[in-house]
């Protein structure tokens, strides 16, 4: 919860406090829209009476502050969910553990790409070699491309945690860059609505 100081008389402060409570009440309960009100399901169709509501499933999993509001990798590692890795018995399930450091020369902190968390969900062929060459350093990354839905942005920003979470990828401080990184990557301009 962001604390801000409002200069003024006690009555005015009370007034602002009331408005803040009303605003947070309006935002409350909006984490997972019901299917009837999500803007894409036909509320007059039969499906909304049958299909599982997102809140029923997602509220039980490790919470996040973005995307589906679920820490999907943690949820998998904790055993809260146990999704199948194959349909066909002869499919080879490939896990790969090595980390790759990227963005070694940029201004932002270094990116640590963990193969382990990615291969828990994905197969090698989902990324190699059409998105990224298998050889370290052979692929030129571009944040612009990622924001346009290419490279990492094929998933991040669409189904996996969104591109607002800069420091989940840019997670390794450069040598000599001793200051700890803020937990929120983006400065909130004065007067903006604080994120949930």
């Amino acid at each position: 919860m962001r604390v801000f100081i409002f200069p003024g008389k006690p009555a005015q402060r009370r007034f602002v406090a009331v408005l803040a409570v009303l605003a947070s009440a309006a935002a409350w309960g909006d984490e997972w829209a019901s299917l009837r009100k999500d803007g894409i399901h036909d509320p007059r169709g039969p499906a909304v009476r049958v299909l599982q509501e997102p809140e029923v499933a997602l509220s039980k999993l490790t919470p996040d502050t973005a995307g589906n509001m679920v820490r999907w990798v943690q949820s998998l590692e904790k055993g809260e969910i146990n999704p199948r890795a194959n349909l066909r018995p002869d499919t080879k399930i490939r896990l790969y553990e090595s980390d790759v450091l990227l963005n070694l020369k940029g201004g932002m902190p270094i990116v640590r790409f963990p193969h382990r968390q990615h291969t828990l969900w994905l197969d090698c062929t989902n990324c190699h070699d059409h998105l990224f060459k298998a050889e370290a350093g052979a692929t030129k990354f571009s944040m612009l491309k990622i924001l346009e839905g290419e490279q990492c942005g094929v998933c991040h920003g669409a189904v996996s945690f969104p591109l607002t979470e800069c420091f989940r990828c840019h997670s390794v401080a450069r040598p000599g860059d001793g200051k700890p990184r803020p937990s929120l990557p983006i400065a909130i301009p004065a007067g903006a609505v604080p994120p949930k």
Partner: protein
Amino acid sequence: MSGPLKFWCLVLLVPGLLAIAPQATAEYGDVVLNRRAEKEGVRPVIFPHWFHRIRFRCKVCHAELGFKMRVGSNDFKMSDIVEGRFCGACHNGEIAWPPDQCDLCHSGKRGLPTGIVGGHETGGPGRW
């Protein structure tokens, strides 16, 4: 601040705050498929990634079943599904409901364009 002024401030500000409060949106990663559905007289399909990834890892559909990771790039018909390809690998009455349960998948509002929607922080990459 005088009484009536305060009253009018409240009257104007509260709906304003409600308007900027987060709106109910589709779940992050929900996909609308409407390349053919409405032309064929049924509702668009809503595919919820969240529901499926609780039960299957990405690689099941995107490696074993061959779904490309770009909305609109998988050109398949109901006949493919009935014959066990794409969604039909599971939606066969054994793992999940069979393809004759039309309304459970074809559950979208009419007029929706094909695309990936939803999201609490971003609406997805621009070209989607």
